[in-house]
């Protein structure tokens, strides 16, 4: 049996003498409210030492309207009594009970209208209705009708009879510790040693705790942090750069032709701002037009400065890493960047106009396409994806290019990111003389998988309850 609280013990001590009593009586003995006593009794009942009986008494009372009718008769009775041979409808309309009473008379079929006069149906009577009004009973259908009409009301009175059980009685007989309980251990009790005799209230450990919500970082941030940590462990330097980029760094340096569809207004967020081109842009121009001094043919056509000067919201973080490379052309460079990128997409459950991209580059003497595959395999393994495979792909600024796919239990192979070796058309104008391995992945795709989200918008317009409930550690197997 669970431990009794102080109040339950007091109740039991009283019940030991009373055996069975009403709540108000016990309340007066215990100097408490009836409600409190009933609550204690319920708890004591759960522990098998008392029983609580809920006694409901029903009675019928008159409404204000009903009180008048009980005295004067129902409106239809009043009218019925008023009708004499020769009473006309006009006479009847003058009666104060007409409005309610006449409808009832017609409904009950007690009268009929004969020309201008109203006559009683032979044998008609309102006696039974009056009897029901004077003595309402639960079994009488006429009572129900009176309740419906708001004349009679049903009233319930609840009474609790509390009794001790044999188990309770034997417990009480053994003697109950009725000393005062204290809720908290006070400084004084600790210092004076009074704690030795203090009667600390016991708690019921089977009850749920009150909810407390810790402050914590966003589950999505946690995934980003995990990826950053993996890359830092793998020896990459982190980059940070602006959201607003010149088309030059976002597209042109990356050998994206100026008429490429991705550069159009419907795919990229353009700004009216422009920035002057950096020194040496002529090499990029020459690369686009003729292939510069490389084995490339270039795109042909005329490369326009004003197109390159236009600012955009970056469509990839490659615009940040390529500037890092341009500033640091000496090997080795291993760098990564996580940041918001922008595409002019119509927003729905799987497409956002802004999302996080993780992007990395490796520039070193003698690095190969095979090394790129090696980095990706290692990264995805560390993210918890056992199965990783690669297939040919196309990106305007890498050659060879690939897409990485990972195996997800229950879904199958999922595309996770793109990669490749920067084209010589990208590196040569910047004076970079070594191969550059580059790869990127959509962070939100992994987040959706990990957090089991169906709607990407939820990452950015989150329900606080979801954030509170999502634990910091999400135990997963196989990168699910």
């Amino acid at each position: 049996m669970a431990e009794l609280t102080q109040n339950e013990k007091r109740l039991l001590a009283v019940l030991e003498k009373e055996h069975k009593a009403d709540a108000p009586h016990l309340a007066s003995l215990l100097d408490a409210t009836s409600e409190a006593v009933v609550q204690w009794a319920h708890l004591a009942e759960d522990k098998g030492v008392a029983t609580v009986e809920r006694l409901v008494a029903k009675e019928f009372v008159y409404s204000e309207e009903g009180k008048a009718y009980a005295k004067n008769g129902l409106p239809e009775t009043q009218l019925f009594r008023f009708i004499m041979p020769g009473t006309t409808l006009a006479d009847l309309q003058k009666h104060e009970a007409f409005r309610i009473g006449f409808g009832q008379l017609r409904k009950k079929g007690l009268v009929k209208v004969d020309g201008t006069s109203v006559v009683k149906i032979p044998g008609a009577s309102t006696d039974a209705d009056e009897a029901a009004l004077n003595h309402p009973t639960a079994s009488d259908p006429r009572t129900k009708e009176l309740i419906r009409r708001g004349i009679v009301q049903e009233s319930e009175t609840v009474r609790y009879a509390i009794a001790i059980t044999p188990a309770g009685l034997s417990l009480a007989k053994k003697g109950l510790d009725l000393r005062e309980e204290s809720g908290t251990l006070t400084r004084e009790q600790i210092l004076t040693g009074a704690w030795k005799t203090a009667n600390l209230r016991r708690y019921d450990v089977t009850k749920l705790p009150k909810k407390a919500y810790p402050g914590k970082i966003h589950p999505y941030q946690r995934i980003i942090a995990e990826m950053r940590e993996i890359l830092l462990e793998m020896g990459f330097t982190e980059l940070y750069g602006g959201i607003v980029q010149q088309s030059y760094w976002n597209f042109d340096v990356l050998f994206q032709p100026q008429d490429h569809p991705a550069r159009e207004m419907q795919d990229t967020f353009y700004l009216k701002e422009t920035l002057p081109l950096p020194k040496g842009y002529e090499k990029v121009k020459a690369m686009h037009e003729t292939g510069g001094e490389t084995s490339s043919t270039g795109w042909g056509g005329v490369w326009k400065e004003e197109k390159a000067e236009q600012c955009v919201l970056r469509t990839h973080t490659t615009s940040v890493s390529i500037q890092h490379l341009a500033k640091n052309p000496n090997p080795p460079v291993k760098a990564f960047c996580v940041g918001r990128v922008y595409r002019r997409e119509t927003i729905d459950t799987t497409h956002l106009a802004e999302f996080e991209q993780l992007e990395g580059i490796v520039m070193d003497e003698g690095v190969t396409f095979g090394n790129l595959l090696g980095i990706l395999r290692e990264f995805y393994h560390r993210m918890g994806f056992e199965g990783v495979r690669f297939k040919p792909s196309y990106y305007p600024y890498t050659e060879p290019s690939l897409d990485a796919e990972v195996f997800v239990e229950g879904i199958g192979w999922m595309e996770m990111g793109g990669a490749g070796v920067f084209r010589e058309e990208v590196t040569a104008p910047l004076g970079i003389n070594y191969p550059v391995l580059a790869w990127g992945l959509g962070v939100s795709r992994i987040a959706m998988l990990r957090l089991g989200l169906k709607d990407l918008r939820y990452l950015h317009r989150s329900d606080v309850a979801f954030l509170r409930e999502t634990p910091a550690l999400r135990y997963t197997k196989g990168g699910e």
Partner: protein
Amino acid sequence: MAVITLPYKYLERLTRTDKKTILDKIALIGSDVERTEEDHADVEFFPDRPDLFSTEGVARAMRGYLGIETGLPSYQVKPSGISFTVDPALVTIRPVLGAAVIRGVEFDDESIQSIMSLQESLHWAVGRGRSKVAIGIHDLDTVKPPFRYIASPRSRKFIPLDYTEEMTMDEILEKHPKGRDYAKIVKDFPLFPLIVDKDDHVLSFPPIINGERTRVTIDTKNILLDTTGTDTRAVGVAVNIICTAMAEAGATIESVGIGGVQTPTLAPAERTVSVQECSRLLGIDLTSATMTSLLQKMRFGAVPVGGDKVKVQVPCYRADIMHDWDLFEDVAIAYGYDRIQALPPATFTVGKPHPVQVNAALAREAFCGLGYLEVMPFTLTNEDTLYKKMRREEKSGVLHVMHPISIENTVVRTELLPLLLEFLALNRHRELPQRLFTVGDVVDSCLTYQQAAGVSMHPDADFSEAYASADAVLHELSIDYTVKESADMAFIEGRRGDIIVAGKKIGVFGEIHPFVLNAFELEHSVAAFEFDLRAVPGYPAL
């Protein structure tokens, strides 16, 4: 991306093997099988390989990849004797013309469908929506050579495709569905491009619409191809891709004279590449013999020349081969990505986080310690949220995107606090107190930097809480600050403070004004603060 429909029967006949063998390997040449149906598969190819935008082109590539027929496909071209003249007035309008005669065509519903779909895919991938290249296909036997490509008055009348009455070219732009779709390419020119035959019958109004007269039907035996545009290379590529695809289907190709030059030749381009350079790039050991056979598998002509070199003949339809590395990618594809040893690079390097992110993490730690929950709002928002609801003046450095997707996303955020208030509104029904924070990028006049902001909403939230929380976070970041009475209208007068560092305002805190609470439809008081992380001592210059 272009999704190409491959009917199995036609594909199997052209590839000379069964569909299972083809579909098992098709992704390995660079594609995604979107879906497989009873009688066809829909396969997506990359935009750099327009030569794969037809069943004929795919079959040609797969025969090589599967070893059924390797090396350079050769195409015979003999002169047709047909010639075109090009009006010099077109120089500023649409100067480039390509053309060819395709004879002995045996059309059925499927192959007409195939060539029409190739034409559309090329318009998209090579033609940039017809502005750079537009292709017209005509029944040669309905018109008489020689042909003239002219700059015509806009009042010229003819019957456009799918119509029965004559219309002027201006009317076509206004009324014909294709005219409306593509009017923007030509509408500003005083004269319009037009191709006519010996008798002045109209073949085509490029890049808008063909004439009804030359409509290609199932009975068409001989085709005249016209390709016009602004870029010689792109026009050439489109001609080559269509001609070689038709040749694969069994037709014969004949050249035409344009300004005295016979075209197309369908001749391969040549490139001599280094075996060593390829090995080094891919990280695999190659001999000139293996590299030669891998290139042949990808339908290049290849012969070893000297120890390290391979002479490569690039088929005329391979528009994507701009650089030696483009060939090396094909070598890698032929070799198989799965066979390349995946080894991380050997050079030792030490990882280093960026100070901006280190500071952001420290700020997050401080907020979490105070019981604040992180949220990550969008960076695109609108003037209403950022300024109007906050009773603040629009910042001069706010960036407006030129073509917003909706009125909700018109500017890049310059502050975080309004977005947090929006968040509280979104979570109105959730248990209080709610303490939320965010640390992230804001943009002012093209410069991106980070701010941190926190809000606390509950019935007892007040100035003291805002001050205490701001003080705690600032202290954790070693920001030495003073406070001055603020004039920020977003807060209640007498319950707001500016955070000052080195004489400059770097942030603000206080109790949010009831006007603002009403504007965001919040029902409880909010203690809030926001500051610029660039005030952290030792913060990197951005």
